[in-house]
């Protein structure tokens, strides 16, 4: 577990910064809610003033600002899904390719460690970091929800909206990790991975706005973990769960196979 410890230590600073920023933003948003809640009527009028396509795009048609959960789903959830995914992709695309890029892989591979162990320990470092980020955000949410009076959030729903972003991040992480096992240049790996995150996010918005493009939701992981859907149906749809699980498992397994066969030249 030497490599895992090393990776954890090396990435700790990033984890602290990202957790502080994402957690801080969410806390800030939730802290505003009690003020909002006082002027409920005005708020609903304001909501109606938004164009329909926009309310649809952000799931505001299904939820309102009348509960703290609805407010969080619309204003805060994006922080942990979108920015959390950006963090996941940054971590996953870098953790292995950095060694090749900075040519430290020659050092690492000359040690008695198998390539499988390298992949396992790096993957474990990614998962651990994502778990910590999501636990921190869940704690922040718990505090934030308790700031308002009408904090009647069911445990099941709370767990679901805490778990969903984690699965989403794992999906993106698996995809970018497997890319980093194929592509040689580290910079392009990060760019490709980041592009995937933003393009699929864009798809999720488009699919919400226009019925014509609604099938785009099937290729956007952001739609898979849509807060409005989860809160109203109290589940992550099995189909979506299967797709994400498939990406994670296939990505993981493919990483082992690809990296095992790879010629490592620096």
């Amino acid at each position: 577990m030497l490599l895992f410890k090393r990776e954890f230590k090396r990435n700790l600073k990033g984890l602290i910064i990202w957790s502080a920023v994402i957690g801080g933003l969410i806390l800030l948003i939730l802290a505003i809610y009690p003020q909002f809640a006082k002027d409920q009527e005005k708020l609903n009028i304001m909501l109606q003033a938004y164009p329909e396509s926009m309310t649809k795009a952000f799931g505001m048609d299904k939820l309102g600002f009348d509960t703290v959960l609805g407010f969080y789903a619309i204003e805060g959830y994006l922080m942990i899904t979108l920015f959390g995914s950006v963090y996941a992709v940054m971590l996953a695309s870098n953790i292995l390719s950095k060694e090749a890029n900075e040519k430290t892989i020659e050092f690492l591979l000359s040690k008695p460690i198998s390539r499988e162990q390298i992949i396992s320990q790096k993957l474990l470092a990614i998962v651990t970091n994502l778990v910590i980020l999501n636990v921190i955000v869940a704690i922040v949410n718990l505090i934030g929800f308790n700031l308002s009076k009408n904090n009647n959030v069911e445990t099941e729903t709370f767990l679901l909206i805490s778990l969903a972003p984690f699965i989403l991040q794992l999906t993106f992480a698996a995809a970018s990790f497997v890319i980093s096992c194929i592509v040689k240049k580290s910079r392009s790996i990060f760019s490709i991975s980041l592009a995937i995150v933003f393009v699929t996010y864009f798809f999720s918005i488009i699919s919400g706005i226009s019925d014509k493009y609604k099938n785009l939701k099937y290729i956007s992981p952001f739609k898979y973990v849509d807060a409005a859907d989860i809160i109203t149906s109290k589940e992550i749809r099995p189909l979506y769960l299967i797709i994400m699980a498939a990406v994670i498992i296939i990505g993981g397994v493919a990483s082992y196979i690809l990296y095992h066969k790879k010629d490592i030249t620096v």
Partner: protein
Amino acid sequence: MNIIDIQNLTKYYNKSRGIIDVSFSIKEGEIFGFIGPNGAGKSTTIRTLLNFIYPTSGSATIFGKDIVKASKEIREEIGYLPSEVNYYDDMKVKDLLIYSSKYYKKDCSKRLVDLSERLDLDLNKKIEDLSFGNRKKVGIVQALLHEPKLIILDEPTSGLDPLMQNVFFDMLLEEKEKGTTIFFSSHVLSEVQKLCDRVAIIKEGKLIKVETMENLSKSHFKNVTITFEKGKPFEIELDGIIQKSSDKKSLKLLYKGNSRALIEKLNELSFKDLLIEEPSLEEIFMHYYEK
């Protein structure tokens, strides 16, 4: 016992040549030099042995174990210094060396200090801030630290000043005393001359020759310089003359053959002065490369 045994090892990167049909073995306790110009396939051979890259065909064993199947096991007992030393920029020298030693189940703390002191290496500096030569020293300590049975060094002396080179060579000889096998590649011939028991010469991916140092330097090659009498230049035709160059004053030959035949031939000629000497290794190698 053979520590390294290479059988018909071939490596192509897609279609470009790495090494072709290389076979040789290294005995226990030997210092074995691997000589060739840049791009000849020295690093390719070493990287294949360490399983960074997979052989296209052929096979090799280290400690009698297959380099592909038992790579991890083999690496327990290997110390490796890459030609370009690159380490984690967030680490101090000390951090890296401790991190490195943790991969082997040995306590190396005393040896760490010893080796670093001898090489005059500052343990508390950040690796990022080190010069090329100092970085090389970190690499050397890293390779020797866990007292491996086999030390593989890829161009180890580049960047080291002559003083440090001597210290480093002393260290290698000490390791040899303990029975350690050392395999090192170089294109600097003089350093091979000083250290190695045997050398393998590689050119354009193919092994040209494996020879003991003794045989190589006493390979019956003679450098012959004949100074003409004024205004009386001549030519010599004789079997065994490998290279010839002449100007108005003298004739230079690289000769491999019977000395007596040469003397007899020279006896027929009149000349002012004659110099017969052992050629430097460089000249012998240049000869191999040009073939």
